[in-house]
C-alpha cells in the first residue's frame, strides 16, 4: 500500500469509515499470531557485516542439515544457546541505494529503502509495547558521537526520521530508575503539579497542531507521542504496579562517563548498556529495546580492547577498516573474523543475562525474541544477500529454535513480520516486498 501504517491509522481515525475498516484490520491481524507469544523484543546491532561466505557457509552461517548443524567460527559464542536460537539463511535486503552501509542501516529494521518507513522496533513499541512505562529503549555504545549523521542509526520513529540512542549507561540508568528506591516495586507516586504542567504543555501543543494544519504534521505527531508518554508516567501509569525487582547494577561502576567515546572503554560501556536493558525489562519498565554497538563504517579501534583477544597495543585496527580485509586470502582476515566473534560474544552475554533471570516456569530468555543483526551481509563487498540474522529466545514457546532455516532467497521484510507475529501482533506485511511471515519459523 502507498500509505505507511501510521498514515493509514491516521486516515482511519479521521474517516467516517472507521468502524468497518478497523474491523478489517483486526481480522487480518490475527493471521500470523501464534498461541504463545513473546513478552519482549530486543535488537542487538553491530556494524560492518561479516566475512565472505565460503565453502560450508564461511565463518558465519552454520553448515549441515536443518537440525544437525555446525556453527561457523563467528557463531561459536552462541554454542551454549544453540538450542534457543534460530539461524536464518537466504534472507536478502534486496537492492538498496549505493554505498550500502548507510543504505543497509536505513533498511535493516524498516524494510524500506532509504529508511522510508517506521522501524519494526518502534512499531512494536507503539502496539504491543504501549503499556510499559517506557515504550521503547534505545541504548548505544559509541553509536551517537558528536554530530553523528542521522544515517548511522537503525531505529526509525517514523518514515525518514532517525533518533539518536542514549550512549551513556549511567544516564540511561538514572533516567529509568532515578526515582526508585532499593527494593523498588509499587505504583509510582503522582505529583499534581506535574500533572497540570503536562496538561498545559499538551494544550499548547494541540493549539500549535491546529494552527499548522498539515504542515509539520509528522514532526508534531512524534512530539505528541513523546508528550503522551511523559503524561502517562506523570499520571502514575494509571495506577499500574511495577514488579518488585533487584535494581542494583554493579557494571555501572566500571563506566567512566568522561570517556564514553574512547575505544578502550567500549567493552565496559556496551556491557553496562546490556545490563541496563536487561534490568529495565526485568523490572517491567519496557518491552521493546534496541542496543546499537557502534555505528556503520565504524571507526571504532577494536585493537584497543584490553583483556580481549582483539587487544594489540600500538596497532590500530578499526571495525570498518577490518571489514575490507574480509576475504580469506587477505593476511589480516583473521582480525576481521576475531572482531565479529567478539560482537557475537556480546550478544551471547545478552542472552546469558536474560537466561539467568527466572520468569514463570522458565527464564526471561524463554519469553523473549532477540534479534542479532548488522547492516550488510559480506562486509567487504557490501552485499545485502545472505544477511547474517540470528533469532534467539523461545518467544514464549512459539519460536522453533535449535534449527537452521534456509529460505533460498526471501526478503528480510518477512523476518520483521515474523518478529511482530512472535510478539502477538498480527502484521501480515511490513516494509517493501513483504510476502508475509517466514514459513515454519513460528510454531
Amino acid at each position, binding site marked *: 500500500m502507498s500509505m505507511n501504517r501510521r498514515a493509514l491509522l491516521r486516515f482511519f481515525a479521521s474517516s467516517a469509515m472507521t468502524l468497518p475498516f478497523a474491523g478489517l484490520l483486526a481480522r487480518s491481524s490475527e493471521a500470523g499470531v501464534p498461541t504463545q507469544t513473546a513478552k519482549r523484543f530486543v535488537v542487538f546491532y553491530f556494524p560492518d557485516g561479516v566475512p565472505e561466505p565460503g565453502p560450508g557457509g564461511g565463518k558465519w552461517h552454520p553448515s549441515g542439515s536443518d537440525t544437525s548443524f555446525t556453527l561457523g567460527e563467528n557463531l561459536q559464542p552462541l554454542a551454549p544457546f544453540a538450542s534457543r536460537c534460530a539461524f536464518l539463511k537466504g534472507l536478502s535486503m534486496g537492492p538498496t541505494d549505493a554505498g550500502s552501509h548507510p543504505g543497509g542501516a536505513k533498511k535493516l529494521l524498516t524494510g524500506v529503502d532509504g529508511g522510508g518507513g517506521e522501524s519494526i522496533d518502534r512499531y512494536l513499541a507503539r502496539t504491543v509495547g504501549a503499556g510499559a512505562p517506557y515504550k521503547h529503549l534505545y541504548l548505544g555504545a559509541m553509536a551517537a558521537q558528536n554530530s553523528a549523521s542521522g544515517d548511522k542509526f537503525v531505529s526509525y520513529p517514523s518514515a525518514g526520521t532517525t533518533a539518536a540512542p542514549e550512549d551513556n549507561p549511567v544516564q540511561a540508568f538514572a533516567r529509568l530508575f532515578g526515582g526508585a528506591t532499593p527494593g523498588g516495586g509499587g505504583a509510582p507516586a503522582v505529583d499534581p503539579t506535574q500533572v497540570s504542567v503536562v496538561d498545559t504543555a499538551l494544550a499548547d501543543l494541540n*493549539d500549535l497542531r491546529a494552527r499548522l494544519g498539515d504542515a509539520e504534521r509528522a514532526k508534531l505527531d512524534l512530539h505528541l507521542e513523546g508528550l503522551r508518554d511523559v503524561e502517562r508516567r506523570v499520571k502514575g501509569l494509571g495506577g499500574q504496579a511495577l514488579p518488585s525487582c533487584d535494581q542494583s547494577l554493579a557494571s555501572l561502576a566500571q563506566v567512566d562517563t568522561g570517556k564514553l567515546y574512547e575505544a578502550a572503554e567500549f567493552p565496559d560501556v556496551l556491557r553496562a548498556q546490556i545490563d541496563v536493558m536487561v534490568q529495565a525489562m526485568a523490572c517491567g519498565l519496557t518491552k521493546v529495546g534496541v542496543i546499537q554497538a557502534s555505528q556503520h563504517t565504524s571507526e571504532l579501534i577494536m585493537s584497543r580492547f584490553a583483556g580481549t583477544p582483539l587487544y594489540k597495543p600500538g596497532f590500530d585496527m578499526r571495525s570498518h577498516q577490518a571489514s575490507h580485509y574480509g576475504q580469506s586470502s587477505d593476511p589480516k582476515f583473521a582480525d576481521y573474523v576475531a572482531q565479529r566473534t567478539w560482537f557475537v560474544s556480546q550478544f551471547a552475554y545478552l542472552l546469558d543475562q536474560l537466561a539467568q533471570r527466572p520468569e514463570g516456569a522458565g527464564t526471561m530468555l524463554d519469553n523473549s525474541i532477540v534479534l542479532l543483526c548488522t547492516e550488510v551481509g559480506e562486509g567487504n563487498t557490501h552485499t545485502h544477500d545472505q544477511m547474517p540474522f540470528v533469532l534467539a529466545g523461545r518467544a514464549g514457546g512459539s519460536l522453533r529454535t535449535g534449527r537452521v532455516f534456509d529460505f533460498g532467497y526471501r526478503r528480510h521484510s518477512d523476518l520483521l513480520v515474523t518478529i511482530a507475529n512472535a510478539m502477538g501482533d498480527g502484521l501480515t506485511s511490513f516494509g517493501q516486498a513483504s510476502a508475509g511471515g517466514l514459513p515454519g519459523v513460528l510454531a
Partner: protein
Amino acid sequence: MSRRNALTALGLAALFGSSAALGACSKDDDPSARRDRVKNGAEIYSSMCASCHGPQGEGGRAPALRDLKTPEPELVAFVSERMPLGKAGTCTGDCAADVVAYILATFKGPLVCEAPKPVARGLRLLTRREYRNTVADLLGGTGSPSAPCGTTTFVYDPGATPRKSVHVAGSFNGWPQTVAGGGWPLAFGGGKWSLTRALPPGRSTYKLVLDDSQWIADPANPKTEPDGFGGVNSVVDVACSAGGAGGAADPTAAFPPDTRPEGFPFDDHGAGRVITSAHMDELFRAAASLARSADLSKIVRCDVKSGGEACLSELVSGFGARAFRRPLTTAERDRYAKLGRGQGDADKGARAVVQAMLASSSFLYRSEIGELQADGTYRLTPHEIASALSYSLWATTPDEELARAADSGELARPEGVERQARRLLASPRAREVIGVFAEQWLGAENVKSVEKSEQVYPGFDAPLRESMLAETRALAASAFFDTRRGADLFDASYTYVDERLAKHYGLPGVSGADLRKLNYPDGNRAGVLGHGSVLATTGHSDQTSPIRRGLFVRRRLLCQEFPPPPPNAGGVPKVDPGATTRERFAQHTQNPFCKSCHQYIDGVGFGFEAFDGVGRFRASEGGKPVDSVGDMNDVEGFGKGTHARFTSLAELGKTLAESDAAKACLVTQYYRFARGRLEDSACTVDAIKRRYLEKSGDPQEIILGVVLAPDFTVRR
C-alpha cells in the same frame, strides 16, 4: 539522492571512452530527429537529473553541466553506465543519448538565475546550543542554577560509632547493597568518611549505606524526597556536563545529540530534528530542574510571594512573551494563569508556570509559520523575523531591543530588518557564532574527539585540542569582523595561538594561556589550511591522509562532491618505515579505476605532506625528505580545465583566495549554516554570491546577503 552520492565527475567519463563507440550518435544528423531527442531529453532531465544538477544545469548537489567540453559520445557512455548515481543502468540507450542531447543543446552561456523560491513553512527545534543560550538569557545568568557543579563531595560523620565501611548507593550506580557490589566507598580520614565523585547531570537520588547493611539518608544533605516506603532519599541536582570538575553548567547535557543528515556538517537541519519520546522525557526534566532552581527575582520584577494575582499575571505575560518569543494569546494567558493559581502556593505556582513554558512547544520550536499573503505565500510575522535574525546571528533568543522592534512593527519593513541585523552583527555574540560556523564548516569541531595513537603522537591531549579549536574560531572571527576579508580564511599570514599551541607549531615567543595574534615567521602555513584543527581531523590515528586532506579542500572549501569509494577500494595502506606516505598512497593515481576520482583528490592532499597527522611541520618522514608539491586540476569545477600547482600551503591558500569556486563555496556554506538546510541549487545563493563579490569580498556581506534576502522572511 544523498549529498555524498552526488557526482558527475566528468573526468570519470574518460574512463569509459573505450566503450563510447557503442553509444555513437551519428544517426542524429537529421535536424528533426535531433530536435526530437532534445525534446524527449528535456523530460528525462527534469525527472531524473534536475534535482541534483539544477533545473538549468547550474549545479547543486552535483556539478554544473553548463558549457560542457567533453565529447558527446563519452557523455552518453558515462550517463549509461553511471547515472543517475545510485540507480545506474536506468537511463541507457536512447534515454542517455536524448538527455545528453538536451544538456548540450540547452545549457549554454552565462546562467540567469531567478529569485530563489520560498522554502516550506515550519518549525525549527532549538539545537542544544540554542537551548543552552536561550535559557541562560531567559533565566538570567549563565551559571548553573543548581548548587553543585562538576563534582559532588559526600561526607559522613560517624560520631562515636566505628564503621567498617560507608558507601554511597543511588540512582547513578544502581543502588548496590554492598561495596563489593559496586557501591562507591567513602574513605576514612580526620574522623570523617568522605568521597568526591562526578555525578551524571540531572537529578539523582541516593542513600548512604553503613557497613553494607544499614541504609540512611545523607544527614549532611537537607534536600530529600520521599522514597515511597515512608522514608526519604537524599537528592542532588547536577546541571553540569558529564565529565566532572570545571565543566560549564549545561542544562542540555542529557539531551540527545543534535544529529545531522549524512554529509551535512551543520546543526539544525529541519526535517530530521524531531522530539521523540526519550527526548521529550529529557526536555520535561530539564524544564522542571530549571524552574525548580530559577531565581524568580531575575525573571519578574514583582515579588511572586507577596504580589498576588497581579504578579502572577505579570509573570505569565512578561516571561511568557520572552519564552515564546511573541506575545501570548488570550487563551494562553488564561491557561498559564490557571496553572499558576492552581498550585495553592504562589512560589510553587510561579515555578509551575516557568516549567510549563520551558516544556511548551511554543518555546522548544522556533516558529517559521508566517501569515498568508495575497500571493499565496506566507510572510513571517515581525516576531518570527526577530527570532530568525537572533538565532541566525546570535544563536539565542531576541534581546529586548529586538523584541521591541518586533512589537513596534519595525521588523515588518526591510530597512528595519537591516538596521537590526547590522546592530546584531556589531556585537561580540555575532563573533562567537561565526566561530561556531567555522568549527562546523571545516569539521574543526571534531578535533576534540579524533582518535590519535599515543605511540605516534604523544602529548596530543585535550588542552592542545581545545587550543587548536580556539585558533580556528579566532581566525574566522578576525576575517569576518576585523580585517573583513574573506580571503583571510585561506591565505592569512597570521594566526592566533596560545603558548601551548605555539610550542606545538614551533613558533617562538608566545607565553600564557591567552590567544595571541602572531605573524607566521615563514611561508609554510596560511589561513585555515595550516591549522592543527584541520590537519589533525583530516589525518588518521597514526599517519596523515592525503585523501582526506584532498577531499577536505574539494568538499569543504570548493563545494565539489565525490561519491563514496567503491566497496572493494581496500583499506588505508599500512604504515611502512621504508616508504613515505606519498609513496604508499601513489597506487590510487596509478590504478586507472581509482584514478578517475583520485586524480582530483590525491594531488591536492599530497601538497599537505609537510605537516604530520597532528599539524606539526616536518621536512622529512622516516628519514626520507618529504615531497609536498601539490597539484590541483579543475580548481573551478569539473571540466573547466583550470589547473594549479603549489609547493606550499601558502601557495594553495593564495589559489583558493583568488578562486571563484572557493568564494561561491564560502557563500554556500554560510547559507547552509544560517538556514540549516541545503540550497536547492546554485541559483539559491547566486544573488548573495554577487553581493559578496561586488563588496570586495567582505564576508559580513555574506551574512547580510542571507538575512536580507527576500526568501529569508517568506515561506510557502
